[in-house]
């Protein structure tokens, strides 16, 4: 039952058979029966490489008008201190604090009219596409949990869903994506949260001894799997095998170990610090690189939270500290994905929970402004080098093409080959729930 797999064993994307996938994935999919699975797969077309999504959350509500949607012609109490600079795409300008990103605007899309932001300080909407207010029994599952449920692992030694955010003072920002009614099996691996992290490398036992033990277990474990027609026993066998894989071929640990990366590439991402900014997230540029490495190793969804953007005072001073780091980390990630030929398979989304007030307050800050915010999408084989939507003269309201969070999520599901018009998952009351609220469809501008 339990076999030790060598570190050379190939993953799903390069050689594992479909039968293996069904064996492992079949259990990870839980409620989906085989015909459901086939239906889901049929709507995906065939993919040789696994597709993935990196979700970057900027806790606190970054000021859209100082980053991606500058209004140089607005009165000074509105336009603020930064000037726009031109990008390598004619007609698109962004903040002067983002010179590297300005050189690659052809590789991403800016959405300047995110129109249905929830007002609370919470990553929930950026992880689920939904409001936290009205939740079904069990709670809404996050994007990553849904992908874990529907697609399972892409590589037997890698969890499908990894969340890099550590604990934060304001815990609603620290969410990595809750599994909701899909249950803990689809919770993200959270290597920066303690708990399961320690389980990923051998604890006080040598590799040889683990081999010994696994042999012993196989000898003792004589109960016939056939006893259990539900598939749970064989599921446990599959996951045990996968766990031994994690322990003997530590793909996961290696992905998180940046010392294995070319130092020149590490330095591209900039020098952040692994320390939380007040009650927000860490300014840890390494997480962007870790996300890329995790995806490369087989993760399907990686979430991370970066710094803290709730600037009620000294807005510009703080942005001068944060924007250059964001610029280097994000531009390095996008460059990396392109250089490695991963840009078609990996989509990146960057956003916060809402925008900020047009008028700068007495303390030089901007306050909460859920009427509009902005988002960036990169990679994912989408049409980039464009801006979707716009705001009025003072960046206070969407002026055209208001975009809903659901549309962005539909775009991301579409990228992973999941048809939001067909797939439903049952909540705890047995009600089939679509993955997107309000029937939103993938952004036609991008797909």
């Amino acid at each position: 039952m339990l076999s030790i797999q060598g570190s050379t064993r190939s993953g799903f994307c390069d050689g594992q058979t479909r039968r293996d996938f069904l064996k492992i994935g079949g259990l990870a999919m839980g409620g989906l029966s085989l015909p459901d699975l086939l239906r889901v797969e049929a709507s995906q077309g065939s993919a040789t490489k696994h597709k993935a999504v990196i979700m970057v959350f900027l806790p606190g509500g970054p000021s859209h008008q100082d980053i991606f949607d500058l209004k140089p012609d607005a009165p000074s109490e509105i336009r603020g201190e930064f000037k726009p600079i031109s990008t390598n795409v004619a007609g698109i300008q962004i903040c002067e604090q983002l010179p590297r990103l300005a050189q690659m605007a052809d590789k991403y899309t800016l959405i300047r009219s995110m129109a249905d932001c929830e007002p609370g300080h919470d990553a929930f909407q950026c992880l689920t596409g939904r409001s936290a207010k009205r939740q079904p029994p069990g709670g809404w599952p996050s994007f990553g949990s849904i992908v874990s449920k529907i697609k399972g692992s892409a590589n037997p030694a890698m969890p499908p869903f990894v969340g890099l955010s550590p604990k934060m003072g304001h815990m609603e920002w620290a969410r990595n994506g809750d599994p909701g009614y899909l249950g803990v099996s689809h919770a993200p691996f959270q290597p920066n949260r303690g708990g399961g992290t320690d389980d990923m490398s051998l604890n006080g036992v040598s590799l040889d001894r683990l081999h010994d033990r696994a042999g012993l277990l196989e000898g003792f474990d004589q109960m016939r799997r056939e006893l259990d027609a539900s598939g749970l026993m064989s599921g446990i066998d599959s996951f045990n095998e996968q766990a031994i894989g994690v322990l003997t071929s530590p793909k996961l640990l290696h992905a998180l170990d940046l010392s294995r990366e070319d130092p020149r590439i590490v330095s591209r991402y900039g020098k952040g610090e692994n320390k939380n900014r007040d009650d927000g997230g860490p300014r840890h540029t390494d997480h962007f690189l870790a996300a890329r490495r995790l995806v490369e190793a087989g993760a399907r969804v990686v979430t991370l939270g970066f710094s803290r953007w709730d600037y009620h005072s000294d807005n510009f001073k703080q942005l001068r500290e944060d924007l250059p780091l964001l610029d280097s980390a994000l531009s390095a990630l996008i460059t990396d994905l392109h250089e490695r030929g991963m840009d078609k398979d990996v989509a990146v989304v960057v956003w916060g929970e809402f925008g900020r007030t047009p008028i700068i307050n007495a303390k030089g800050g901007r306050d909460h402004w859920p009427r509009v915010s902005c988002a960036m999408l990169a990679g994912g084989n989408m049409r980039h080098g464009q801006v979707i939507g716009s705001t009025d003269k003072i960046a206070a309201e969407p002026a055209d093409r208001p975009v809903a969070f659901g549309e962005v999520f539909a775009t991301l599901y579409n990228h992973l080959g999941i048809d939001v018009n067909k797939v439903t998952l049952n909540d705890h009351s047995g009600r089939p729930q679509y993955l997107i609220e309000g029937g939103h469809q993938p952004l036609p501008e991008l797909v």
Partner: protein
Amino acid sequence: MRTLQLILLTTLLTVMHGLAADAPRPLNFANDIVPILTKGSCNSGGCHGKASGQNGFKLSLLGFEPQEDYEHIVKEARGRRVFPAAPEQSLLLTKGTAQVPHGGGKKLDPKSEEYQDLIRWINEGMPYGSDSDPKMVSISVEPPVMTLPLKGSQQLKVTAHYSDGSTRDVTRRALYEANEKAMAETSETGHVQLFDLPGDVAVMVRYQGKVATFRATIPLGAPVDKLPPVRNYIDDLVNAKLKTIGMPPSDLADDSTFLRRVTLDITGRLPTAAELKDFLAVQDPQKRSAKIDALLDSPEYAEFFANKWSALLRNQRTQPTYARGSYLFWQWIRDSIADNKPYDHFVREVVAASGDLDQHPPVAWYRQVKDMKQQMEDVAQLFLGTRMQCAQCHHHPFEKWSQQDYYSFAAFFSTVSRKASGQKDEELIFHKRGTATATNIRTKANVVPASLGGEPLKLKPEQDPRLQLTEWMSRQDNPFFAHTLVNRYWKHFFNRGLVEPEDDMRETNPPVNPELLNALAADFTKSGYDMKHLIRTIVNSSTYQLSAVPNAFNARDRQNFSRYYPKRLNAEVLYDAVNRLLDVETNFAGQAPGTRAVALPDNSYNQSNYFLTVFGRPDSSSACECERTQEASLAQSLHLLNAADIQTQLARGNGRADVLTKDPRPDDDKITDLYHIALSRDPNAAEVKFATAHIDKKTNGKKDQEAFTAKKEAFEDILWALLNTKEFLFNH
């Protein structure tokens, strides 16, 4: 096979005949047009039926509100949707047939009867129909019940019955869905194709808010000549079923297996080695019954079942200040179970709870379940096996429940009021004098309380409506109350409800053995809702005591109870079992050392205990058992195989491995001990040999301290391996 074809042919002819016999008559929007939209799934929740509609065109979900649909089709969009001057130019048809781009694709064939009906309806000036037109009152399906061979098939015929006594064949326009998709699939035209699994499968048939069910029994047809002894009516009814479908049951389980199984199921713990020894030594043929009684009288039974109910009754500690209340409530649940409080009393004391936490701890339920609709939905799902959630916003798609039913039922809770009581975050719950009423969001009418399927009640302002509700619930003839509980408990012991999911008991989701469900419910009611009586009846049956090991015929059986279905130990039970095996005293904050995980009062411990979290101890956030996840995961495997905690406990001085190493007895005896503790059975000779060979291999050629260390490590390895065997992880 020939007979089958004949039946099929006759049925098909009947279907065609039924259609041909329809003479042209004025079309009625609700009776004739809406069903076309439903069948084309135009009004499904993923399309125009969702609350926001699709691309500006909204239909009521599944066509439950024809009046609204009529408005939307005929009057909106500046009349472009229907175009009487040239019906085929109507947007409804050009979109439906995908002649112009349609996001939903082609839903309608221009050659179909449905298309012709739509053309005719538009030609006739889009009549809505008059009030005097017959209304559909029910549907029926032919045949309703059938015995069919493996891989057999059956064409269904569905008839709609109208208020004027007329009938109409609606086979083509009805919707079909099998409840066990591994057993059967259905076509759009009502053809049922069976696969090769024996047992029972039901097909739900829906047509415009009415439902009917087709049930197929699929025998395996094996000879059933050896049946286990009949201990009570459960065995009669299960054996009868097994004979009908020709599926021979497994043998009875041996004493060790029985003891482990029943101890885990009643008390949530492993039997001790001493218990095992005593039990095996007793010669009395009644010893299993005696053991059952002893377990039911132990405080551990009350703790284990309090754990189950505490989660379902949402006993959460969401604030630190809730600790007192959650503990009092848990204690009340535990004591109620220990005292074997009749179930109807138990439920009444929760549902109609009044007072403060000290006077009456179950008011804690109202602290967690705050809103009238939630209270009603929880009560319906938990105690009546009825999921009302759908009917909040629209008619329930698989059920008879309408929004009127939903709000009438919710009105029972409309007078529940609360005010602050002595301590922070604690409340006094009381009935506020006045008329109980809730507003139906669709009709905007105020409705008074009515039980499910019952007449509106006229209550005096001083009457607490919740007492009327609990009185109705516990009436002997209540069709939901006893059935739901016996099904829930059946599932606890058999890992599969007679109805699945256990709290979704609707006409269209029939039990696999209806006679058994009815008999259990009748017996439970007659016993005065005696919970221990119910458990005793279940676990004394031969059915419960069957072996899990399949014979040549029943390996794939998942619904006839021809053998015991193994179930994984749940998070708390497994945690306690691992600690028992490693001889660790548990230590939870604020609890006496050694308190079992099974005996924790609320969900707050999940946060600090990764083991409980990763194995899915529920957070008590819903009234559904499904919150307790049964799935395996990579994180669980990694934890059991490699957790630092477990490694530390394995290697600890004076831990189980250390003590065994120092134990001067022969290794064989020590291995036997470990099997007793972990698996509640004797090891066989091969297993002993396998284990001692590992010890010998590790210690070979070593001396003194080195040999001691090697031997201790060998015992650590053996313990590690035992706790990762499926035999340990499962109750079987």
